């Protein structure tokens, strides 16, 4: 628990913390709400040359250049037309601002640590190292993503390798 406190995670009296859940295709994911800076609609992006296709490009967010990542493409969940419900979750991770395109944001939930079960080892595209655990919400499975670890990982290529170690 002490480690989480260091993260600056919200410790609510009951020992639970809050998560933002969002959908990608048929799957539901959750991430630590304290990493979320804001949620906004999808804007036209400027493409970045020679970048992997899950990096959609960069946008101008009040003078800050923010890279936008399509998690659906990253998780290989097929391509979807962006529509008015498509949202971008702007995350603040390790001092950097990154936007993540998701199909929709559903809810903010408070979960105790004991409600999150560890994910079993399985052959998924998303390395289990980036999965914090699994939880059930109204009989739906929610995948808890360790978004910080995922975004600063080398396979995302968001951060230069020399810095990735520090992040």
């Amino acid at each position, binding site marked *: 628990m002490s480690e989480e406190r260091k993260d600056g995670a919200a410790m609510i009296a009951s020992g639970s913390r809050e998560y933002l859940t969002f959908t990608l295709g048929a799957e539901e994911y959750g991430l630590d709400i304290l990493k979320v800076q804001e949620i906004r609609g999808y804007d036209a*992006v*400027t493409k970045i*040359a020679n970048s992997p296709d899950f990096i959609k490009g960069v946008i*101008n967010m009040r003078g*800050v*250049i923010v890279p936008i990542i399509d998690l659906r493409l990253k998780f290989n969940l097929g391509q979807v037309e962006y529509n008015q419900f498509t949202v971008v979750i702007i995350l603040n991770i390790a001092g950097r601002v990154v936007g993540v395109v998701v199909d929709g944001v559903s809810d903010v939930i408070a979960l105790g640590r004991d409600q999150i079960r560890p994910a079993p080892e399985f052959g998924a595209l998303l390395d289990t190292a980036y999965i914090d655990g699994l939880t059930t919400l109204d009989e739906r499975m929610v995948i808890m993503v360790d978004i910080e670890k995922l975004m600063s990982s080398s396979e995302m290529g*968001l951060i230069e390798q020399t810095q990735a170690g520090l992040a």
Partner: protein
Amino acid sequence: MNIDMSRFYQVFFDEASEHLAAMEGLLLDLDVESPDLEMLNAIFRAAHSIKGGAGTFGFTDMAQMTHVLETLLDRLRKQEMSPTTEMIDAFLQAGDVLRAQLAAHQDGIEYDDPRIAAIAARLERLAQLDADASAPASLPSHFNAEAAVWRIEFCPDVIELQSDSDLQTLADALAELGAFARLAPDQPDGCRWRLTTRFDQAAIIETFAFVCDPQQIRILPDEQTPAVALSDSQQVEDDAGFGFFDGAPGSERALAAGSQQQEDDDGFGFFDGAPGSEQALDQEHEGFGLFGGSPGMEQVAAVATQDRADSHQGYGFFSPAPSLSEQADDRAPPAASGTGDSGAPPPTAGVQRTSESVKRPAVTDSSIRVSVEKVDQLINLVGELVITHAMLAESASGLDPVVNERILSGLSNLERNSRDLQQAVMSIRMLPISFVFNRFPRVVRDTAATLGKKVNLRLVGEDTELDKGLIERLADPLNHLVRNSIDHGIELPERRRAAGKSETGEITLRASHRGGSVVVEVSDDGAGLNRDKLLAKAAQQGIPMPEHPSDKEVWQLIFAAGFSTAEKVTDISGRGVGMDVVRRNIDEMNGRVEIDSSPGRGTQITIRLPLTLAILDGLSVRMGEEIFILPLTAIQESIQPRAEQFKTVSGKGQLAEVNGDYLPLVVLHDIFQLGGERIRQEEGILVIVDTNEGRVALLVDELVAQHQVVIKSLETNYRRVEGISGATIMGDGRVAMILDVDALARLSRK
């Protein structure tokens, strides 16, 4: 609970380094002959502030150092003694040590160097000396004006004498330095010797270094024994001779004192340009040659003539005697003697200086300390405001001007106001270039002294303002250039004389605004670049050159990595790393370097920089759907190509024929894999850009417009992208990438 002092450390670090910089500047400006009391006070205050801060924060080493410094300064400002060049040197060194200590504390470590003790001892000794620091001005370095008594303590068992030497050889060697005596019979567990010498501590250490590890030896100034001068004739009574600060009458007495050093009264005439001066030179002690051409600091040849705006407030009294100073220079020993000696200043010069010295306007310090981050945030917000305005103006452009007159006039007011606001905010980041220039008097002084050259530094246009970020990054390249100029450009005094030039070389640092950019020139009146030598060296190192290279192409060679024409590598230059670093640094600032040189007349290196790091003059070009920005500095021309201008070479990609030259063709579509529709090559535009790899033809779909764009880093939230130097936000709020033409040329070759 203790207050966490570390929170305030940064404030101390900032302030201390400012005080140190101020102190150094004042020290260099200080006129030893007629010290301005106000300046001495200012130096004292700076040292005192550092001491206070260091004490408060528990940096005892710095506090101790400043304490010694302060003791001496205090005596100076109370006019108990008068400053000498040796003191100034010691102060400068102490400043260096303090700076190193400060840097170490900033990194959270303790700075430990034997230098500290040596300098502290030197300062202490100077503080104890009487005001009669007048002694012959030209002594080899390590030579002090006064004989000092040193107590040397060591343990013969510990110092590990080398096999072929013994205590007696050591004693003999020391005896050569001065009067040597044993305070006690030598014991295996400890020797105590006394040495009365005019050499300084470093010289004694050097002697020991021949036979053993000098760190094991304690060399202390012996306070108990009063200093015994080796030669009485060199001791001048501590009389009121120094009254010459007060004006002319006192100087007579100073003159009298001076005459004990074989100075002829006539000698002083030469500052006035009087005919007697030549005679004076002949009679003069050899050291006096040093005064020539360097009234500010006699003992060294390097002097910064702070020549604001082409010397309109210059010290007029140099000019009457240029030829005299040349003659005087003949007699000057290598400027290296500048370190240890303390000269007898010619009092008349002092008097003149007092009357003519430029009064510096009192600096009214009404500034506040704001973090750069806050300023940058402000700049960002104002940038946003401008963009928002542009978007508003675009949507309003469809409105009927008659019906919506008020909205439209409000918009135009808004435009004017936001532009003014943007300029005002940008100017917060602007600093006068004197922030970099001010360090060069010291650099020139030290470098010239090391090399035994005589160099005058002229600073022009120090008030030119440019971005703080640029100022910081300009320091290193300029340092390289100036040192290079002194080492390779300016010739040794003898050679300069042979070439019919003044022995004192001149280096000019000049800054000015030209168009939208800042131009910084480093020029010297030295030997100039040697075309044949450069070409021979290029051939030797296998650097490809065209058959009949233009001068410009040849000069550019010096920027090649590992290229050095210096015959020998010194600690100042010659390893061939400096110039390519200069080039790279300037390139990173979106600047350009140009060289102009004529043999025998000197070299001029011109650096052209954008006004700020934050703004770039660019040409927006379209490729498919995307807009890119090309830095205007890189663009040479753009042409509408004909189909027959495109050539292919098997396996080697494409070339474009432009005015008879075949240039590599860079097709951005291919490099960035933009996809989308391709237009036919001849329907596009060829932009000829100048890159590190030579000229390159860029094929783009269309030229859009010329903009001043605000540069944003991609790396803040993403990473470096090859071929892209940054991003910017266009008027419509979209992001556009700024192209890095050097990287593009490199990429296209792969």
